[in-house]
């Protein structure tokens, strides 16, 4: 009967083209509005490192002001002081660990005629690349020895390598950064995790940095910080050394832990570390250490703005209005087809068979609405892109993936079926005799 219902559905749609088009259009517009916002939210709330969500943890220890929490209600700072980051990193108690901060550097291309340009970079450690599954086009990151010896190595993004070396394999070549020579150890392949989970202190939707170099080298070289720095008490002394020894927070730290027991052990280690620091007069606040996996960390940082949820609610309401219209149209169509339905009843169709036939037809309308809805969603996303064209990151938020395309069709079919329930129920319950005798 599947093919028969498909045939009847198609014939019915062709027999009532205007009404059918209106229904498809109503569903498509509702789906388009809904899916546009859902796509943006889906991308905003995605987890680009989901496959390691139970292994990666962002480290927080509460070194903040005893009289005023970093953020209500009693939340610890999002970043670490240099003192703590270095101590925890040097302790090397995790399977992998990385500390990092954002920097800004001036790159001098090989071609003397080319003008130097400023670019974002990240001072980090060797484990950054394997921890976050960063893909390499050429070469690799550096090793722990390079961190220890403050080696002048650099990893370039694909775009920067294109810009400076014309896209060639530049591993081993020398790049001048702020007047100093760095050996290229690797070139990244395309890598745009959205949101940029490893650094949510800045715009979580911006592109990852263009170059990566050792954390130890950046600190020793006093490289400018490109990210946020917060302090709760004045520096004790002058100069960079005083800053490093201060309670200012500016370093992000992630660890990779294998298993729940490793996580528990590491938390125990953090607690012990803080207790030890308390004896030295630091960490005046109660013990408040935290390890958040990427999903928890993004939620904690409220990566998805509340406005998006409000917009999504409005879009869903709009879809409901469109579906109410569809219900009205389906009712009109079922009245128009009352004679056909009555005839089928007279010829032996049970209510259940008629229900299946009409629901199947609604499903076809839903699929058509879903497909057109995908086109509407595409248009909606292009509209958002044009509205915020001045923001580079917007292009990452307006991409439809296969899961969203599938969801659009599923949502459209479910909506159409939902809208068809009442009209179909009414259709199946008409008295055949009323419509069959036309004298």
């Amino acid at each position, binding site marked *: *009967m599947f093919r*028969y219902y498909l045939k009847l559905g198609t*014939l*019915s749609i*062709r*027999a009532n083209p205007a009404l059918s088009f209106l229904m498809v259009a109503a569903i498509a517009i509702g789906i388009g509005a809904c899916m546009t916002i859902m796509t943006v939210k889906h991308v905003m709330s995605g987890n680009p490192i989901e496959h390691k969500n139970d292994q990666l943890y962002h480290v927080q220890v509460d070194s903040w002001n005893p009289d005023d929490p970093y953020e209500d209600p009693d939340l610890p700072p999002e970043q670490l002081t240099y003192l703590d980051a270095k101590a925890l990193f040097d302790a090397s108690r995790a399977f992998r660990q990385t500390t990092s901060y954002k920097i800004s550097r001036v790159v001098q291309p090989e071609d003397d005629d080319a003008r130097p340009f400023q670019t974002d970079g990240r001072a980090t450690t060797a484990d950054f690349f394997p921890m976050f599954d960063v893909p390499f086009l050429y070469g690799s990151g550096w090793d722990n020895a390079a961190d220890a010896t403050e080696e002048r190595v650099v990893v370039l993004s694909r775009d920067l390598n294109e810009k400076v070396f014309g896209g060639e394999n530049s591993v081993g070549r020398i790049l001048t950064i702020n007047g100093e020579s760095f050996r290229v150890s690797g070139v990244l392949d395309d890598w745009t995790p959205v949101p940029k989970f490893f650094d949510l202190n800045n715009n979580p939707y911006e592109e990852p940095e263009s170059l990566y170099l050792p954390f130890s080298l950046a600190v020793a070289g006093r490289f400018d910080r490109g990210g946020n720095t917060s302090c709760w008490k004045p520096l004790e002394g002058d100069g960079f050394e005083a800053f490093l020894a201060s309670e200012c927070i500016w370093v992000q730290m992630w660890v990779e832990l294998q298993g729940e027991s490793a996580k528990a052990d590491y938390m125990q280690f953090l607690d012990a570390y803080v207790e030890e620091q308390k004896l030295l007069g630091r960490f005046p606040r109660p013990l408040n250490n935290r390890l958040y996996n990427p999903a928890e960390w993004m939620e904690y940082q409220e990566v998805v703005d509340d406005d998006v949820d409000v917009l999504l609610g409005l879009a869903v309401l709009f879809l409901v209005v469109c579906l109410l219209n569809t219900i009205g149209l389906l009712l009109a169509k079922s009245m128009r087809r009352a*004679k*056909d339905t009555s*005839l*089928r*009843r*007279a*010829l*032996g*169709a*049970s*209510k*259940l*068979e008629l229900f299946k036939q009409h629901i199947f037809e609604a499903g076809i309308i839903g699929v058509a609405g879903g497909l057109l809805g995908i086109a509407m969603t595409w248009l909606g996303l292009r509209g958002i892109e044009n509205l915020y064209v001045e923001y580079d990151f917007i292009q990452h938020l307006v991409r439809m993936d296969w899961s969203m395309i599938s969801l659009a069709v599923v949502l459209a079919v479910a909506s159409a079926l939902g809208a068809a329930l009442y009209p179909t129920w009414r259709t199946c319950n008409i*008295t*055949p*005799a009323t419509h*069959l*005798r*036309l*004298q």
Partner: protein
Amino acid sequence: MLNMKNVSKVYRTDTVETHALREFSLTVEEGEFVSVTGPSGSGKTTFLNIAGLLEDLSGGTYELDGRDISKLNDKERSRVRNEKIGFIFQSFNLIPELDVFDNVDVPLRYRDFRADERKRRIEEAIELVGLGSRMHHLPAQLSGGQQQRVAIARALAGEPRFLLADEPTGNLDTTMADSVLDLLAEINKAGTTIIMVTHELALADRARRNIFVRDGQVSDNAPELHFASMAAG
């Protein structure tokens, strides 16, 4: 075969109660060709709708092949309609977007026939009504008489025990009406019971027995007809 005893049918609105049938009793035996006549509003069509299980009765009993129809659920009633009853309507009631073949196929779709069995039955029924060359024409491409023949083919394809015809020639000219009645007579000769509602006495004369309905009841005061059976006998 068909046995109605004291059947009543009442239509109710908020303010009006209409008795379409009252104390309606009738027995039709297998193989009969019965015409049902009566003035407009006498209850002929209501009787036919109840006989065809298209409407519920308000009172009385209706047995078809010994089964009390009032005790059947929707699925069972649909099955009875599909397997035992064939309908022929005055306005043909063909589905305009389906061709002749697919129109005749409609009742067979609700039975568990294999595709080749359905095809055989459809083709045989269409050949029987003389439209073998128009199997893939749409209803709009056929004359009124041809459309009624398609409707008869549709009614016959399921090999029902009896046909219910409601003014089957009402929309046809005399020549076409005669050919349709000839066809019904042939079908009846082959063993199918036919109950035909008509308000034309000349047509009723083609049947073997006439039931005259007045005020929702079978009336003894029927107009005199020369029945086909009598003529034949």
